[in-house]
């Protein structure tokens, strides 16, 4: 008789179904029904306290509910890398070293972490971020990649490749002789990819996390600071709306809304608690390719 398997609704990985309470690849619970809003957003199920995610000969245990901790038990041949300020604790035996990154000046200028830190097993090392929310595990199959907004990355296994790219979503304002360039999504985004081997990527979403799939050509407007990750196939562009009933003064606060337009095909994910993006309200002098709507 064939062994029954369980296919996770979140990461689509299939595993033997015996005695599962959570998916061994991404930690999503198996005993809750999908929480899908009428508008099509799938609420990411919180990883159950103490769930284990297996990778290679190592595993990651998710601990806590408000600000969850990702506690890696690394085998000798496995490694993870992380931005050094998310390290919560480690055993003295875990070897930690710097992983150099290309484009150091640009990263420094853009406020992105200059040093990515690598930890080599054997031993335990644990990470957490600084806001209530959820750990979002993203298992990456060979040949797949995701784009992640900056400063949301927690850790990735050694098999996951890391790169970054210019978002090309920006606008310039002019105030007298001063010109300032603003980046609603940040100047750069992280790109994580799996080459020949599968890998595990962990993000931290502030608040709750929601995912939806966009069909080819389908688009949605999202607050830029709420974007968590997207498939590399999803395009993005600046979008501005001018509400009716407003008037322009020497400063135009309240005269425009700034969004990012995401267009499919592919998955997008957002977080419900986001940073406020400060729009200085000054007149725009230049923008990246953008759509504009006046009500």
């Amino acid at each position: 008789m064939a062994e029954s398997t369980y296919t996770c609704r979140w990461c689509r990985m299939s595993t033997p179904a015996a005695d599962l309470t959570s998916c061994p690849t991404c930690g999503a619970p198996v005993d809750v029904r999908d929480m899908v809003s009428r508008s099509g957003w799938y609420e990411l199920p919180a990883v159950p306290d103490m769930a284990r995610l297996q990778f290679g000969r190592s595993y990651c245990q998710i601990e806590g509910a408000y600000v969850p901790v990702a506690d890696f038990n690394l085998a000798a041949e496995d490694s993870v890398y992380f931005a050094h300020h998310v390290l919560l604790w480690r055993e003295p035996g875990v070897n930690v070293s710097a992983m150099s990154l290309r484009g150091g000046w640009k990263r420094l200028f853009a406020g992105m972490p200059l040093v990515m830190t690598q930890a080599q097993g054997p031993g335990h090392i644990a990470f957490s971020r600084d806001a209530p929310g959820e750990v979002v595990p993203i298992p990456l199959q060979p040949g797949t990649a995701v784009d992640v907004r900056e400063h949301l990355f927690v850790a990735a296994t050694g098999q996951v490749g890391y790169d970054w790219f210019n978002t090309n979503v920006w606008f310039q304002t002019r105030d007298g002789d001063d010109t300032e360039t603003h980046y609603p999504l940040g100047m750069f985004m992280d790109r994580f990819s799996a080459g020949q081997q599968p890998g595990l990527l962990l993000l931290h979403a502030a608040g709750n996390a929601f995912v939806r799939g966009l069909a080819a050509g389908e688009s949605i407007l999202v607050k830029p600071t709420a974007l968590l990750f997207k498939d590399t196939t999803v395009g993005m562009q600046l979008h501005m709306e001018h509400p009716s009933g407003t008037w322009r003064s020497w400063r135009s606060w309240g005269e425009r809304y700034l969004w990012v337009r995401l267009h499919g095909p592919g998955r997008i994910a957002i977080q419900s608690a986001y940073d406020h993006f400060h729009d200085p309200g000054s007149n725009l002098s230049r923008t990246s390719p953008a759509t504009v709507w006046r009500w």
Partner: protein
Amino acid sequence: METAQRIECQWCRSQNLSTARTCDTCGAPLDVRNLVSDSGWREAPRLRDMTEFHFGQSTCQVEGEIVPVAEIALAQGDWVYFEHHVMLWKDESVAMSVMPLKGGVKRAFAGMPFIVSLAQGPGRIAFSRDATGELVVLPIHPGQELDVREHAFLVASHSIGYSYVRIQGLKNILFSGQGMFMDRFLAGGEQGLLFLHGYGNVFERVLQPGESVLVEPGAFLYKDASVTMTVETQKLTTGLFGGQGMNLARMTGPGRLGIQSMYVHHHTD
């Protein structure tokens, strides 16, 4: 002869009636198994909404789960002390005074509360801090000494002595992220109750003599006085850009160590 069966609380070791669902001393659920990670960290018990427990002749009730409130019904003659900005509300009948502290100038200089307030029963008074987290209830047994990072203390019962210890070593002061002082709480002849607020989730681990773990300094919450703390710096370099330093606190047993998962990261050069 019939003997009443008792249940020991796994968090504070107090004895409870076999019919109890929560510990009468610290409020920890008695009918929920401990959550212990494979690496040995135990989650602080998540106190059920509206749980009640007792100290002296007074009663404490915990309200809420995301930013919990500790509401205390003070009996006549009982009193508690606290940093004045953590008081949420109180009955008019609760008398207020201040606790005289030594070294006021040093404390003010170090950013620690210059005034610790006292509230005396009868009446109700409630406390909470300003961020998502957990209420950590720690009964302090006679002779025990506990060190707590500054500004994590919520409220303590009158039988607990309060002092502060200067963190030893310039490197520890500059890079540990704790400031110059830690609060020290000690019980003399009588058990007392100490309430902390941990940001995010709180985990506790018991270190054996000589056993050590490296902790992000901003995550340190409390420790037994027997646990030592030293700061270690690791330089992470990437050639031309010089890289960054990473400071971690090496905590060495024997004793309990408590950490919080949401912390302020302290920048290094």
